[in-house]
C-alpha cells in the first residue's frame, strides 16, 4: 500500500483537482475542526517518527512548542542531500499537495504563523513547480488568511539552498534561511524553544516524508496507522535503493520489512552477490551482506541491534566486485567536501582521513595508516556541535571493522608487492581494479 507514493496508483495526483477528488485536503479540514492540542495528541499517539534520519517522534517534537508565543514557524526540511537518498524528491514531484497539506496540519497544531520549505538548490525545477502547487492551495483557501473560515492564518514559502549538505542539519538550515553561513548552532536553546528557532522564535523542523504522513494519520486515526509496521516503528517508509541492483528506485513498504524482501524480492538482487550494504547512505555504519543481515527487519530498533541505523533508509548495495577501501575513500571525499569547517575535529579529521586514504588507494600507504585513520575517525565521534562528525566517522570505523582485508590488501609491505607486479602496473584506475580483485580474492 502507498500512503506517500500515491502517484504510483494515481499518476495525476500531483494535480490539484485530482488530489481533491482522491480525498485531498480532508485531513486539513478535519484538523481545523479539532483543537490544536488534539491534533498533536493524535500524531503523538501514532508514534510517527522523523523520517529525515534521526527518528525522533514528530508529535513529541510538536508538543515542545510553547503555545504562549505569538510567532512560531514550521520548516519543511527538503534539503535531501544524504548520499543515496532520493525519496523526498519523488514525493514533491508526484504528490506535492499531500506534503503541503501535512505541513499546514502541523502549522495549525502548533499555531504557526508561516511555513518555509527549504529545498536543496539542485531541486530548482521542483521548487518552481512547488511554488505553483502552493499557489493552488492559496487560491482554494487552504493556505493564507482565515483558512477555510476557521480564523487560522498561516503563509507558506519556498526557499532554495545552493549546494551544501550541512544545511540538512536543522540548526545549519535555520542559519542558512536567515542569510547567515550554513553552519550548525550551539544547543540549547533548541529550535523548538524561544531563542533557538528561526529568527529566534519557536520552530518545528520536520522532513518532507514525515509531514506527508500526517494527513493520512489525521483522516484515518492513530490506531489505524499503528496497525502498519511494528510497535516501535509504525507506518510505512520509503526505501531508496541504489548501487548494484537490477531494479533501483524508491520502495514504500511497511517498517519491519526485511532486507531480503526489499533487496531480493523487490529490487531483484542475487543474495549471494551482495558484499556489503550501506543502510543509511554514506553516514550510517556499513553491514556485510550475510544471511543474518538480510533477515534483519528494517525498523529503528532492529537496525540498532545490528549496530547500524535505519536513518533516512537510503540503501546502497555493493556486489562482490567492490573494494570496500575504495568505498571508504569515496565516502571520505564526500564528507571532506561537505564539512562546514566550524568544528576543528571534523574540519581537520575529514581532511586528513581523505588525504591518508588517497595515499592508501595510490598504493603508497603504510600498514599503520589503517589504524591511523581509524583513530582520527574515533576522535571525531561526539566531539562536534552537530551529528556530522559522527556521520563522517561512521563509514571509516565500520568499513575497517567489517572489511579489514580490503584495506590491508592496499598496504602490504613493499617486498610482497613487488612479487605481484599486476597490482602495481598501469594507471591509477588499473591499480585500483587490480587491488580490488586482490581484495576480493582475499575474502
Amino acid at each position, binding site marked *: 500500500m502507498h500512503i506517500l507514493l500515491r502517484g504510483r496508483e494515481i499518476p495525476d495526483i500531483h494535480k490539484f483537482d485530482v488530489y481533491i477528488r482522491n480525498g485531498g485536503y480532508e485531513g486539513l479540514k478535519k484538523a481545523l475542526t479539532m483543537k490544536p492540542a488534539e491534533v498533536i495528541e493524535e500524531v503523538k499517539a501514532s508514534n510517527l517518527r522523523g523520517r529525515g534520519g534521526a527518528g525522533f517522534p514528530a508529535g513529541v517534537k510538536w508538543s515542545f512548542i510553547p503555545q504562549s508565543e505569538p510567532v512560531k514557524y514550521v520548516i519543511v526540511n527538503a534539503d535531501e542531500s544524504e548520499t543515496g537518498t532520493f525519496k523526498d524528491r519523488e514525493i514533491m514531484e508526484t504528490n506535492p499537495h499531500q506534503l503541503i497539506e501535512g505541513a499546514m496540519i502541523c502549522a495549525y497544531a502548533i499555531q504557526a504563523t508561516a511555513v518555509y520549505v527549504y529545498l536543496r538548490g*539542485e531541486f530548482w525545477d521542483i521548487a518552481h513547480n512547488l511554488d505553483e502547487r502552493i499557489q493552488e492551495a492559496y487560491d482554494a483557501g487552504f493556505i493564507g488568511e482565515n483558512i477555510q473560515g476557521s480564523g487560522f492564518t498561516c503563509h507558506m514559502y519556498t526557499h532554495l539552498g545552493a549546494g551544501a549538505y550541512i544545511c540538512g542539519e536543522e540548526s545549519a538550515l535555520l542559519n542558512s534561511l*536567515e542569510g547567515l553561513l550554513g553552519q550548525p548552532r550551539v544547543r540549547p536553546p533548541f529550535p523548538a524553544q524561544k531563542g533557538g528557532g528561526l529568527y529566534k522564535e519557536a520552530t518545528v523542523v520536520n522532513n518532507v516524508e514525515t509531514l506527508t504522513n500526517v494527513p493520512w494519520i489525521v483522516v484515518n486515526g492513530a490506531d489505524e496507522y499503528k496497525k502498519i509496521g511494528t510497535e516501535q516503528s509504525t507506518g510505512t517508509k520509503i526505501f531508496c535503493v541504489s548501487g548494484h541492483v537490477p531494479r533501483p528506485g524508491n520502495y514504500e513498504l511497511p517498517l519491519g520489512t526485511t532486507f531480503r524482501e526489499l533487496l531480493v524480492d523487490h529490487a531483484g538482487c542475487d543474495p549471494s552477490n551482495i558484499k556489503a550494504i550501506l543502510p543509511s547512505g554514506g553516514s550510517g555504519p556499513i553491514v556485510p551482506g550475510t544471511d543474518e543481515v538480510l533477515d534483519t527487519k528494517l525498523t529503528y530498533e532492529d537496525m540498532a541491534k545490528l549496530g547500524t541505523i535505519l536513518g533516512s533508509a537510503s540503501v546502497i548495495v555493493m556486489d562482490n566486485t567492490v573494494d570496500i577501501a575504495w568505498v571508504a575513500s569515496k565516502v571520505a571525499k564526500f564528507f571532506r567536501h561537505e564539512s562546514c569547517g566550524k568544528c576543528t575535529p571534523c574540519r581537520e579529521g575529514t581532511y586528513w582521513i581523505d588525504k591518508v586514504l588517497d595515499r592508501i588507494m595510490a598504493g603508497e600507504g603504510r600498514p599503520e595508516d589503517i589504524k591511523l585513520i581509524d583513530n582520527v575517525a574515533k576522535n571525531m565521534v561526539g566531539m562536534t556541535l552537530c551529528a556530522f562528525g559522527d556521520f563522517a566517522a561512521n563509514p571509516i570505523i565500520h568499513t575497517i571493522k567489517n572489511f579489514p582485508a580490503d584495506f590491508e590488501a592496499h598496504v602490504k609491505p613493499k617486498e610482497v608487492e613487488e612479487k605481484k607486479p599486476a597490482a602495481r602496473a598501469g594507471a591509477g584506475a588499473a591499480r585500483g581494479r587490480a587491488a580490488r580483485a586482490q581484495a576480493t580474492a582475499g575474502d
Partner: protein
Amino acid sequence: MSIKDKKYEARIQKHFAKYPDKRSAVMPLLYIAQEEYGWISPEGIAEVAELCEMDPTQVKSIAGFYTMYSEKPKGKYWLQVCTDLPCALKGADEFHKELKEYLGVEEGGTTDDGLFTVEHVMCLAACDKAPMLQCNFHYMENLDMDKMKAFIEEKRAELEKATSKK
C-alpha cells in the same frame, strides 16, 4: 548590467516579502546576480549587499560557502557530474573522465568555444538514474556517452549557426 534593473524588480520584491528580515533574501538574490552576470561578480556582490543591507564581505562569504554560486565565469552549459558513491557504482567516474576527454578539458575547465564547463559534484539525489549530471540547474539522467555526444554536437551546431548568421 545591474540586478537593480527594472526587469528584476518584481522578483526581488517577491523574495523580500517572504521574510521578516532582508538578510534572508541574500541567497535568492545571489541567484539573480548569477543570472545577470553569468557568475558571482564583484558588481553582483556589491548590489546584493546594498539591497540586503549587508556588508559585501558577508555576501562574498555566503557565495563562497555554496557550490551552486559560481565564483568564476563558466561555460554556457555548466555540466556538474555526480561522481558520488551510488553513481560511481554505476560507472560515473568513467563517464566523467570520458566526458572531459571528449571535450578536451581538465576538471573544472571550460571548452575554448565557451560552451561547456565540466565539474564533478556530490550526490544530487538521483542515484537510481545514474550516471547523471546537472546542466545549469536542470537534471539530465540515465546518461551514457552516446547521449552526451549527441547533446554536445547539437549545442555546437547551434553555436555555429548563430555565429554564421552574424
